[in-house]
């Protein structure tokens, strides 16, 4: 692959659980370059969240390896090279909004004044200024998730890993946060790996969509999303948007318009 050094290189990664009884991922190869927004999409149980955790060095692959910023995944984690957002906001109940956002900064030993300044910027970025002294239970689900995103971005990681971050939200909140995420992605210049099972969400957000097959999870197809930026609500109504949605859907169902790799269909058993 030409161009700049990839941020993430996933090299023939396989993962099995329960002493090899369950094959979760099979020989995944994927390179993600700087400034890309790559979505991993697939049915439940295809191992997309597992793959994201392997990139974050939260679980170990059975075979293969992952290189992040030219380092092993473990070294990248130790260097705090990525921020992560989960489906649940995973805010700490005993910390206020401001304290939750500043947690990674405390861990990185930023001094107090610097932390406060950054928390202020982050609150502005996710449009939660004025909520810094609230506790998590006092926020709506969408607001909690915005705090979680602010926390992941607070220490300016170049790589953002997102595991179905909007999966638990209603459709309207999700679409609004999709727009906000793209704006933030544009502002911060980060690289995003985004796990979802919403086709529309993947197409709207991504520069590329990696479609995964069910267990054992493999990358069935990678689809370039050539919708122009900046993307707005109007993007969702363009004919090209629907074409791409259809393309991703067909790839998900194994009967792609393009030639899919062999053995995609048998994975449906």
């Amino acid at each position: 692959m030409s161009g700049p050094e990839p941020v993430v290189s996933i090299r023939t990664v396989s993962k099995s659980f329960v002493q090899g009884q369950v094959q979760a991922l099979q020989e995944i190869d994927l390179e993600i370059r700087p400034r890309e927004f790559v979505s991993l999409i697939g049915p439940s149980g295809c191992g997309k969240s597992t793959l994201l955790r392997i990139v974050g060095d939260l679980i170990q692959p059975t075979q293969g390896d992952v290189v992040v910023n030219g380092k092993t995944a473990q070294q990248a984690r130790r260097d705090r090279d990525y921020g992560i957002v989960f489906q649940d906001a995973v805010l700490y109940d005993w910390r206020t909004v401001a304290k939750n956002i500043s947690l990674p900064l405390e861990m990185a030993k930023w001094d107090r004044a610097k932390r406060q300044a950054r928390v202020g910027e982050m609150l502005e970025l996710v449009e939660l200024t004025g909520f810094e002294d609230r506790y998590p239970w006092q926020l709506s689900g969408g607001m909690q998730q915005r705090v979680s995103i602010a926390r992941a971005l607070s220490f300016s990681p170049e790589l953002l890993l997102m595991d179905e971050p909007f999966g638990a939200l209603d459709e309207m909140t999700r679409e609004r946060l999709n727009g906000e995420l793209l704006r933030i992605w544009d502002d911060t210049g980060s690289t995003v790996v985004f796990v979802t099972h919403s086709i529309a969400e993947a197409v709207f957000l991504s520069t590329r969509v990696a479609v995964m097959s069910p267990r054992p999870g493999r990358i069935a197809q990678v689809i370039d999303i050539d919708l122009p930026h900046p993307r707005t609500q109007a993007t969702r109504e363009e004919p090209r948007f629907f074409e791409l949605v259809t393309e991703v859907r067909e790839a998900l169902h194994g009967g792609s318009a393009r030639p899919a790799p062999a053995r995609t269909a048998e994975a449906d058993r």
Partner: protein
Amino acid sequence: MRGARGWVPALAVFVLGILLWEGYIAAFDVQRFLLPRPTDIVQTFWNERDVLWGAGWFTFKEALGGFAIGSAAGVLAALVCARWRPLGRALMPYMIAANAIPIIAFAPITNQWFGLLNPLSKMVIAAVLCFFPVMVNTLRGLTSVRPQSIELMRSYAAGEATIFRRVRIPNSLPYLFAALKVASVLAMIGAVVGEYFGGSQEALGVQIRNSAALFRFETAWAAILVASILGIAFYLAITAVERVALRWERRGIE
């Protein structure tokens, strides 16, 4: 906190209860060794206040000492079991079994071990009573952390000690305080009942036992009243600390 008006129903129930008690004794001519009148109890409570509160304080110190020892040991044991989970799993069945033992039955034995007049013989009973609820609850608090909370800390390159300090211990605090409230009550019970099996003449439990033996039932009841006031005060003190320590917690409608 509810305002003064909020307490009116509870106060009404209290007054009504006392009136019914008083009225019942008058109406059915209940013998005083079965149930003294509240007014007689209060009068004795006032007349013998110096002795009774002296005894109450003596016993309260035993309860407090046992509470401190038992709770500290319980927290420590929970931390060890949460940090080295196989050890916790090996010990847990015995902890649960030991918790089911009526520990108060050991009071005569601890009196032998530490000496009848040594406050430590009562503290040990109170401490053992406090240990198990504190240990079991705190361990649950330390371990019932969402896996993603831990994953998030690991994504910040946090080690085990940091995860304990920043996630597990704060997460366990509501469980700990629930256990401490139970333990405060148990500590008073342990100290008083321990004294029923013998102890200093200064002790509240000894006073209750002796008064009852000498048919001084008003004194026995007044001493029980002292024990109750101290027990409730202890419980409320812990609740007050809890409110400050857990001010972040969501509170239901009270």
